[in-house]
């Protein structure tokens, strides 16, 4: 299958350096020494993407501290009003200020994205390490379970899971994490399979190191580079998916804003105020574009050999 070609490629480049202790080459391989920063910025887009991304993050994180409008104050005389001095980006269908709601919405959209990826990573790395390292029946069972999760078209599964648990911030996080985790497991497992045959691991086993120690000190540092890249690309997907869930009425319940929910609300008034859906959608688009670009740059910086056809974007 397509995924296995990708994994084969990862397997070839799984161990980042042959010599030295695990700790030493984990530091060298990850960030620094060999011009990682210059490789990171080598793609012409990485610099601008970083700038735009920092601006978006500043707007959502710091912006609300300086904005005086109340994000929940309704003003029915000013429904769907275009931009004015009082409301710089206009108002929504209940007359609430768009500028501050977009900033707060960004916190939720990006927050859910980051939290779900962290959760997927924590569970996925652990499962992948165990499956790849112990092999045999543990591996067989873990992989069949992963296959069964991958069988469900991701959004359908997330919608079902989030709705069952009950709409809300954490149910979105859990649903997105659950269906992102298989990618992490496969990636980690693939890398572990190649690293565990390396001489320094065999040496550690011969010296009587315990399984947890081998996993933590010798194997984990060597599979970290592809995982970090994957995390950045997964967060881009997670932001998109959170928007879809909110658009479908799941996700954070009103009156709290999120970019996806603001799109859902403005979509109801598409013909009265077509401009209202441009901003939340545009912000999702810009954020995902930046994160994707930064993820690609990160891959080039951390390990140029990981360049692939971006098969990972398929899930």
């Amino acid at each position: 299958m397509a995924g296995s070609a990708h994994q084969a490629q990862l397997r070839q480049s799984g161990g980042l350096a042959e010599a030295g202790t695990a700790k030493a080459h984990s530091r060298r391989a990850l960030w620094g020494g060999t011009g990682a920063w210059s490789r990171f910025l080598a793609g012409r887009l990485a610099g601008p993407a970083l700038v735009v991304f920092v601006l978006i993050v500043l707007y959502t994180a710091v912006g609300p501290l300086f904005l005086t409008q109340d994000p929940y104050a309704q003003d029915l005389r000013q429904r769907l009003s275009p931009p004015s001095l009082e409301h710089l980006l206009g108002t929504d269908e209940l007359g609430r200020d768009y500028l501050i709601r977009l900033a707060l919405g960004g916190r939720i959209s990006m927050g859910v994205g980051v939290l779900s990826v962290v959760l997927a990573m924590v569970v996925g790395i652990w499962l992948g390490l165990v499956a790849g390292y112990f092999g045999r029946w543990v591996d067989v069972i873990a992989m069949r379970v992963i296959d069964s999760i991958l069988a469900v078209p991701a959004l359908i599964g997330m919608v079902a899971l989030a709705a069952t648990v009950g709409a809300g911030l954490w149910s979105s996080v859990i649903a997105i994490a659950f269906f992102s985790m298989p990618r992490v497991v496969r990636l980690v497992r693939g890398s572990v399979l190649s690293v565990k045959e390396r001489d320094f691991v065999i040496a550690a086993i011969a010296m009587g190191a315990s399984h947890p120690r081998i996993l933590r000190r010798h194997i984990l540092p060597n599979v970290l580079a592809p995982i970090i890249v994957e995390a950045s690309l997964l967060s881009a997907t997670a932001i998109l998916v959170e928007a879809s869930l909110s658009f479908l009425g799941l996700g954070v319940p009103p009156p709290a804003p999120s970019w996806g929910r603001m799109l859902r609300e403005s979509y109801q008034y598409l013909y009265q105020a077509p401009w209202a859906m441009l901003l939340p959608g545009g912000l999702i688009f810009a954020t995902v574009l930046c994160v994707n670009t930064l993820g690609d740059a990160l891959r080039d910086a951390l390990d140029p050999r990981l360049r692939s056809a971006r098969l990972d974007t398929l899930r």
Partner: protein
Amino acid sequence: MSQFIAHRLLLMVPVWLFLSIGVFSLVLLLPGDPVLSMLGEGASPDQVARLRSELGLDLPIYQQYLNWLARALQGDFGTSLMVRGKPVVVAIAERLPVTIELALLATLLTYLIAIPVGIYSALRRGSAGDAAVTTVATFALALPNFWFAILLILLFSFTLGWLPSSGWVPIQQDLVANLKRATLPVIALGLYNAAVVLRFVRSSLLEVLGEPYITTAHAKGLPSRLVVYRHALRSALIPVVTVGALILARILSGTVVVEVVFAIPGAGRLVTDAIMARDFLLVQALVLFFGTLTLLINLSVDVAYRWLDPRIKHS
């Protein structure tokens, strides 16, 4: 070949069983007691106990699962709240043709764009045309598909008035009206995936063009056109065919949102309808159905891969 298919089918069994366990467990996550919510507040303990044993909810969990599985295999998913008086399987089957039509047209559009543009981009690597294609593809990958769908409505229905913005006409009723209503959803579903496949075609072809046998073909004086279309494309397109399974799964996921935006009564829309009606038996059936469908699509692509790529037969 038939042995291979039998082997793959056998491998599918454990995956499907894990899938069914996951789908069954979904209702266990539901907050609250289903019996109490069915009977209401004023039910006597006697009534509650009677309904509980009638529904088999007093049995151990594994027994409940086996009963559910036995009924599910016969197509009996219980009485749905939303489509009362109709077996759930029939309700899904009624909605299916619409989604299948959209998914097939979207897959067709994906490949019609991705293959020629991907070939162009690979052959003119580094040119302005290639840069333009790659940039557009990168942008398309960051586009939330439902937002893109709304933008299409704004442009082609609201502003230009060329195409209807919502609704559906069955294909057997009126072909032209059907295609008019399918156009925008298919573009919304197909364009994003075209970007994914295009990148894949490009890198796959570039990889093959670097192979020694291509250099040999050039060296022995074959015209470039022949080298590219006879020698390189054949092997470059094999992996492209195999990502078809993932693309179809993605498109099925996409129909959930796109059918909501365009108010199309398909199976994807049924997922959100069932969730809004809190009809979890229907949700279960839908997730199991889409999961099984994806497994079967994967199987057929694996078979196609084996048939297309002679190298696999000998390994």
